[in-house]
């Protein structure tokens, strides 16, 4: 556990020692702020709950983009900068390495998600929203973030460079998001299978309305577990190539 934390702490500090961390944070907050102003607040009078639902809907998108941008450098950057040798020659297991990297990305994304709380707080000025709705929505964002970070970590173990890693992760995420569309275009039992695989529609909408559903929580945790396991497996294979 100590080594996992050591990797995570160094990696977390690296976000702030490079321009990349600030660029991602600024980009996501600016885009989120603009969307909140134009889409959520809008022109006419609306119910606070509707505004909050709208906020969580576009925050799903910004969280997914942020997670892909944060993870694209995780392993690929070590490979590009040749610092991978330092880690490979150290007594760090592949699980410690992958989890350390993942936890650092999770901590950074969580910080970014927390930084968006000023937007729901603004709704309090002219409206009334339930704290439970906010907690439910943010739990969904954290879970979506965790799942996409795991996908991004996997992409980073495969890609030869950061752009390739981002492309691989984006394709996987897009396929999972578009599952809802496939579900509507197909017939049972395929439609059921596709709907249950969807990263957004079926699983995120309850959170958007402030509800925490066990099935949705399990779905996001499963995605995280599967892609982290694949990342560890991919990392261990490199010593045998």
């Amino acid at each position: 556990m100590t080594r996992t934390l050591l990797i995570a702490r160094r990696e977390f500090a690296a976000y702030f020692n490079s321009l990349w961390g600030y660029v991602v944070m600024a980009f996501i907050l600016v885009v989120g702020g603009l969307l909140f102003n134009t889409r959520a607040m809008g022109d006419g009078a609306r119910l606070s709950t509707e505004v909050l639902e709208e906020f969580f809907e576009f925050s799903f998108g910004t969280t997914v983009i942020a997670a892909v941008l944060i993870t694209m450098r995780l392993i690929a950057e070590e490979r590009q900068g040749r610092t991978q040798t330092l880690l490979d020659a150290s007594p760090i297991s592949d699980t410690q390495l992958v989890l350390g990297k993942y936890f650092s990305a999770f901590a950074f994304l969580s910080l970014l998600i927390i930084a968006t709380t000023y937007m729901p707080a603004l709704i309090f000025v002219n409206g009334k929203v339930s704290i439970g709705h906010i907690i439910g929505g943010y739990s969904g964002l954290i879970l979506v973030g965790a799942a996409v970070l795991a996908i991004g970590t996997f992409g980073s173990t495969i890609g030869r460079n950061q752009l390739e890693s981002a492309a691989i992760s984006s394709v996987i995420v897009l396929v999972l998001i578009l599952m809802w569309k496939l579900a509507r275009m197909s017939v049972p039992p395929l439609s059921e299978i596709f709907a249950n695989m969807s990263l957004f529609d079926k699983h995120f909408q309850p959170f958007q309305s402030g509800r925490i559903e066990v099935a949705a929580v399990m779905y996001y945790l499963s995605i995280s577990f599967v892609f982290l396991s694949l990342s560890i497996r991919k990392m261990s294979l490199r010593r045998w190539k």
Partner: protein
Amino acid sequence: MITVSSLTRYYGAHAAVKDVSFTIDDKEVVGFLGLNGAGKSTTLKVLAGLIMPSAGEVCIDGVDVLEAPDSFRERIGFLPEDPPLYSEMQVGEFLHWVGRVKGLSKAELKERLPEVLNLCQLADREKWVIGTLSHGYRKRVGIAQAIIHRPKLVLLDEPNSGLDPAQIVEMRKVLSALKEECTVLISSHILSEVSQTCDRILVLHQGAIVAQGTEEELASAFGTEEQTEVSFEVVVRGSAKAASSLLDKIEAVTGCSVESNGELTTLLVEASSDVREQVAKSIVQADMGLLSLSSARFTQLENIFLKLTGGGDA
């Protein structure tokens, strides 16, 4: 004791090393020679625990790389040709982090870090950001990260590549200090460096060990009929120009490289016979301060190497 027996490593269908066996005793400094593609890098990678062997055994004090890879890597320090450093970190901060990752406690590091900084002559660079260091200092940080956890075996891949003459002299001092601490395996293309630094030499060719032993043992086993050359180092107090003009007058001297550092001049002399006495006499007679004269190295290593590997450039 490091034991490599019947090591074989395939990349696809191609065997990069095949049936390689050797042992290295504690506190021994061993040079690893071979042409490009001979399998040096592959062997080093296996010894560093970066890749796993396809067959054979690699053990350090009985710990097998396949059975206990993490425990094996705790006993290894590795410096690749291009030092793997996080350029945004400070030297001290980086070494502290590496030490913790390699299993040292904070209390152990409090004692060990200053030792390593002194050994690698980095004490005055502890607070420097790695990205701002020269190549020579980056190599030293690379060595420091390799030895911070007191490994049994330190693997150095081309430790002198890209260094200027002054940095090479400094690196030699660091390497000789390393001998006191651990077993060292140096892979290098620079035969004179291997000859000066190592106790024993392993020659790898086409994925197999073709010879091993001290330079003298190799010379007697594979010696050529070509004239044996002698090299030695002289440090004098005086100008580089005056010192090299003195050496020019000695007939047996076939080459001389000069490095000047303030008022001190270091000469690396190559001669067709052992002319150390004559050199010392000339320097003293010229009223220059003779500060040191190294022992002679009979450097016919290059000829032996070419004979064993069938020619080509090393």
